[in-house]
């Protein structure tokens, strides 16, 4: 944050800015001092903004053609795919956009975990982020229901039935959610309403997320506090803007590949069969981005406890700033944490994998071990590690290692990406 007061040069600009200081805001955003050593894992914030806007724009245009009625939803989607001008393109961008959004958000979250971006003074940024993530899951789930295919219907049935695990009032809540005695037209119309609403809530939270970020400024791969502005920082524009643009374009190439050459690969074939309340598909799986939590749910042989474990697996993330007792942010200077970080990543991937497999035999055993480890990592390993771990000496500045006499800047510089 620049300390000097900004005054527009032109008279009109000044007149306007005195009444609505939007130019001051724009100036703050362009001049915003950003650590110069941010690596490409930091570009996913911009990429996520792109994903959100893409989803909102394509979603609005789809909503102009979609009919939220149990008898017509499937047909209206087919009409979008066949008759509406570029309807197929817009729908495939929207459907694959959801997956790309989650891909980006997972990278964003794991970047934060690696570099300790959730730690003081950035707890609020992190918690807002977790709320955004929760809303994304809710919105993605409800969006998947809208085409009213078999997976839509049975996914909606299974997920809403999670609430029946609540003692005493569970059944009543499920009936209330459905607006009937099963997932049916009232459920579809309310899901459409909420699916339409949530992205705008997310948009509002994103503003808060960025606002909260601009108070302490960005964390960085070295994880130390830096003076702003200083030799350690660059103005957001053009340095970070161009870097974000480059990363975004790389991301868009992957995105385009899915949209144009494998548009249905991340979906499930059963969702091209119209919903049928009398036949459940042989193998129900949620979308890939929900699989780790689905595995946790299934690994516990008790309805209520399973649902609680799944919820807790997400809530635990919000508590992370206090569960991680280490004062050192970046994993670069935490040799042990770094090992556990990679194990956690492997653990989550394994959970995702077994979540897609039938819940039986070896898969169930693996799911249970992985679930146990997931909680072990957050509840035991992280708190203990903060006290036990011998961290490496950290440099005083990202550009002037000489002052502190620390030889570790070289290490920090070379090791600040996942690649080595």
């Amino acid at each position, binding site marked *: 944050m620049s300390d000097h007061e900004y005054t527009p040069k032109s008279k009109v600009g000044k007149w306007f800015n005195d009444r609505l200081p939007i130019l001051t805001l724009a100036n703050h955003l362009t001049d915003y001092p950003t650590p110069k050593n941010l690596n490409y894992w930091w570009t996913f914030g911009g990429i996520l903004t792109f994903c959100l806007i893409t989803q909102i724009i394509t979603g609005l245009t789809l909503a102009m053609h979609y009919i939220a009625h149990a008898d017509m939803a499937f047909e209206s989607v087919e009409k979008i795919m066949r*008759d*509406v001008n570029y309807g197929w393109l817009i729908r495939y961008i929207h459907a694959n956009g959801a997956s790309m959004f989650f891909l980006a958000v997972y990278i964003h979250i794991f970047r934060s975990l690696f570099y300790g971006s959730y730690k003081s003074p950035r707890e609020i940024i992190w918690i807002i982020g977790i709320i955004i993530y929760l809303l994304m899951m809710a919105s993605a789930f409800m969006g998947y229901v809208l085409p009213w295919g078999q997976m839509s219907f049975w996914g909606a049935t299974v997920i809403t039935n999670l609430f029946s695990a609540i003692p005493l009032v569970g059944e009543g809540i499920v009936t209330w959610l459905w607006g009937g005695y099963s997932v049916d037209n009232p459920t579809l119309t309310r899901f459409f309403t909420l699916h339409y609403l949530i992205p705008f809530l997310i948009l509002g939270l994103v503003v808060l997320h960025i606002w909260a970020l601009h108070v302490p400024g960005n964390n960085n791969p070295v994880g130390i506090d830096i003076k702003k502005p200083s030799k350690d920082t660059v103005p957001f524009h053009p340095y970070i803007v161009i870097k974000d643009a480059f990363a975004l374009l790389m991301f868009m190439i992957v995105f385009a590949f899915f949209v144009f050459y494998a548009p249905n690969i991340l979906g499930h074939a059963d969702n091209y069969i119209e919903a049928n309340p009398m036949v459940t598909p042989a193998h129900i799986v949620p979308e890939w981005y929900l699989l780790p939590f689905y595995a946790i749910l299934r690994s516990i042989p008790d309805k209520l406890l399973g649902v609680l474990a799944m919820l807790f697996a997400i809530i635990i993330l919000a508590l992370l700033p206090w569960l991680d007792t280490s004062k050192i942010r970046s994993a670069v200077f935490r040799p042990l944490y770094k090992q556990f970080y990679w194990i956690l990543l492997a653990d989550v991937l394994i959970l995702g994998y077994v979540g897609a497999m039938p819940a039986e035999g070896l898969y169930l055993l693996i799911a249970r071990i992985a679930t146990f480890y997931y909680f072990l990592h957050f509840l035991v390993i992280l708190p203990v590690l903060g006290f036990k771990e011998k961290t490496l000496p950290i440099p005083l500045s990202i550009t002037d290692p000489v002052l502190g006499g620390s030889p570790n800047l070289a290490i920090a510089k070379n090791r600040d990406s996942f690649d080595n």
Partner: protein
Amino acid sequence: MTDKKPERREFLFTASYVAGAVGVAAAVWPLVDQMNPDASVKALASTEVDISSVKPGNTITVLWRGKPVFIRRRTQEEISEAKSVKMEDLKHPEKDEDRAKDPEWLVMLGVCTHLGCVPLNDKGDYKGWFCPCHGSHYDTSGRIRKGPAPLNMEIPKYEFVDASTIKIG
């Protein structure tokens, strides 16, 4: 970094901006075009109308592409009146022969060319149609004679399939 010298217009930057702008424009087009009539609307069929029961001096109204079409079996008086009008008296000069293939039958879109209301039959100063919304008067050939409408009522594509059937569209 703080001194902001006017940057030399690098070719590279210009090329990036231009290419980026082209891409954005190309991406916007599908979002605009999706609001145009879709393939099923464009393919909408023509309508065939049985006119055998229409008596002289009567009008029937049928729906075609969501708009009313007036089919009027005109009386001799109306036909001669329509034919006798001088071109210089018309705001939108069109001969009656160009508007009615068979002078007995007038087939036209029943939509006022002012702002799209449906005019009333047998009303107005010219014994043709009168639009109640903003007071446009049409004659027995559906031509605008008085009021704010700029053009005559539109003649759709139609043909006589046989003596008692008209195909519109």
